[in-house]
C-alpha cells in the first residue's frame, strides 16, 4: 500500500501541501512507519489564505513545519475514532478539536471533504481549510 506522501503526490489535489512538506523537510518523517493521522488541506484550502501567507512560510521552513505539524496526530484514527475522542494533541503540541454529528465531520473550523483514506503508514482526512493553532 502507498504511504501518506505517495498518496498526496498521486492525488494531484495537494500540490501546495506536497511542496510545503518538502520545503519543511518533513518528507522522511511522513514516509516513516508512523503511524500518523494527517489532516490534509487541498490546494483550494491553501488558496483561501490571504496573499503573502504561504510565501512567508515557505521562506521560513521551521515556522512552516510547525504549522504543518499542527495537521498531524500520532496514531491511526478513523472518523469513527475521532468522533469518540473529541480532541487530540497534534504533533505541534496544540490540541485539535473534532465535531462529528448528523453526518458532518469537522476538524477545528475545517470541514472534512474526504475521510478515512488509508495509507501504509497512517490515514488521511482531506480538509477544505488550513487549520491554525489557537
Amino acid at each position, binding site marked *: 500500500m502507498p504511504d501518506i506522501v505517495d498518496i498526496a503526490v498521486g492525488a494531484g489535489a495537494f500540490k501546495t501541501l506536497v511542496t510545503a512538506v518538502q520545503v519543511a523537510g518533513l518528507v522522511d518523517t511522513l514516509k516513516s512507519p508512523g503511524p500518523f493521522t494527517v489532516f490534509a488541506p487541498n490546494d483550494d484550502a491553501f488558496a483561501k489564505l490571504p496573499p503573502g501567507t504561504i510565501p512567508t512560510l515557505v521562506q521560513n521552513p521551521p515556522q512552516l513545519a510547525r504549522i504543518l505539524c499542527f495537521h498531524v496526530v500520532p496514531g491511526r484514527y478513523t472518523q469513527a475514532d475521532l468522533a469518540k475522542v473529541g480532541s487530540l494533541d497534534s504533533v505541534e503540541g496544540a490540541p485539535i478539536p473534532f465535531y462529528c454529528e448528523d453526518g458532518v465531520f469537522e476538524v477545528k*473550523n475545517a470541514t472534512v471533504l474526504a475521510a478515512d483514506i488509508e495509507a501504509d503508514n497512517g490515514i488521511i482526512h482531506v480538509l477544505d481549510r488550513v487549520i491554525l*493553532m489557537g
Partner: protein
Amino acid sequence: MTTATTTAAPSYRGVLPPSQHEFAEVIHRLEAGGAMLPDSPENLMQIIGIYKAYAVPMDFYWRDLLYMAEQVFLEPLPFFKYFPTQEYLDRHNHYAGDTADLRIWRGPATAHPELLAFMAKGETGKMPKLLHHLWHDRINMEFAEECMRAMLWHQGMGGRFNDYLDSDEYRENANRAIRAYFKGNPAMLALHKLFPEMFLEQCRQASYLANLGLFWEVMAPVFFEMSDLFDEGNLRTVPEAMNFLVNGIFAIAGRPIYHHVYIRGECYEVIPKSKGFTWLYEAALPYVEAVFYRTSPFRGTKSYNAQARQVPEDQKDFHYGILYADVFPVGTAGIPPTLLMQDMYHFLPPYLVEYYSRHCKGKDDMLIQLGITFQRSMYCVTSAVIQALRTALLYPLDDPNPRHLQANRAFFEMQLDRFKRPEARLRNIQNQDYR
C-alpha cells in the same frame, strides 16, 4: 500587498436573532465585516494620520531595540543604548524596499527620511546628538522599553516564547552568550557564578527586546503603506483600513521570532530561528494582550494604592492599556505613554495638525487630542486582530451554516465582554465628540 474589501451582508440577518449583548451594535458591525471603530471619513483620516505619525518613531524603535538586543546586550552601564550605530539605521527592513522578503511598503528599506531629519535637528536645531539626547530632544525609547517590560512581566499570554525562556535549552544558550560577553572580565564572570540568575534575567529581557523589535519591523512599513494608499485615495473606509491590517497579519504571520547576539563578530543564537517561533503567535498576540489590554498603572496625575486594592491582585485583571487609558491624567510629562505622544507629535501629517487646531484648545492640547486619536486607531488595530483570529480559528462572515455563525457571534461577544469594564473606551470612541 493588496487591500481586500469585505462586502458580506450582516450574518445575523435572517439567520441569527439580533445579539442581546451590551455592545450589540458593535457586534453586528463586526459581523458585517466592520471594525469596533465606526466607519466615518473623520475616523479614517484620524487613524491613518496617526499611523503615519506612529510609523516614523517606530522605524527608530525597532532598529534600536534590535541594536540593544544584539549588540548592547548585557552592557552594565548602557549609557549609549539609545544611540544605534549607522549599521542599524542602514539596516534593510525585511518588508520595505527592493531587497524585501515581502514588500509591504514601496518606500526605502533604510531609516525613514523624516526620522533621519529629526535625529539631525530635533526641535532645537542642529547640534551633537549627545546634547539632543540630554535635552530629551530625541525619539524616546522609554516607551518601547516599557512595552518590552509589559510583555516580560505579564507572561503567559499565549505562544511558546515565554515558556522557552525558562527551558534548560534557553539557559544553556544564554549562559554561553553571557560567558562570551564577559570573556576576559573575571569580576563579571565571578558575579555570574555567584548569582547565576542575575544576568540570565537580563538576557531574558534582551530576548523580549528582540521579540518587540522584530514585531515592529513589520508594523512600520504596514503603517507607511496605509498612509500612502490613503494619500492616493486608495484607502477609503475604516473597514478597508482594517482589512489591510488583517491581510498584513496573515502575510507575515510566519515571520521567525528569534534572538541573536553578536559578540566580537561572532553570532550567538540565544533563541534560534529553528525553534519555529512565529510573528503571530510569539510576538503579535502577546504584544496586543500585554500592551493594548494590560500594561501597568502609570503614575500620571492619578496615583494607585496597591494596599487599598486599587491595583488588581491577578495580572490577568490588569486593564491599563491604551484601550482603557484615560489619556488626560496619563498624559503627564516623562511617563512612557506621553513620551510616545511626544514622539508622534513630531511627525503628524499637516491635515491632522490642521484638524487638531480646530478643536478643544487647538495646539495647546494637541498631545491629548492625538493620544485619543491613537486610542481610536488602536481600536481599529484590535478589530483587525479580532477579525484575523476569527478568520484563522472560526468561520467566514458569509458562512451559510447557522452553527458556524453562532460560533462567530459567541467569539465576538466574548471579545467585547472585555470592554464592559467602566474604564474601557469602546463607548467613547463611538462618538466623534470624544477628543
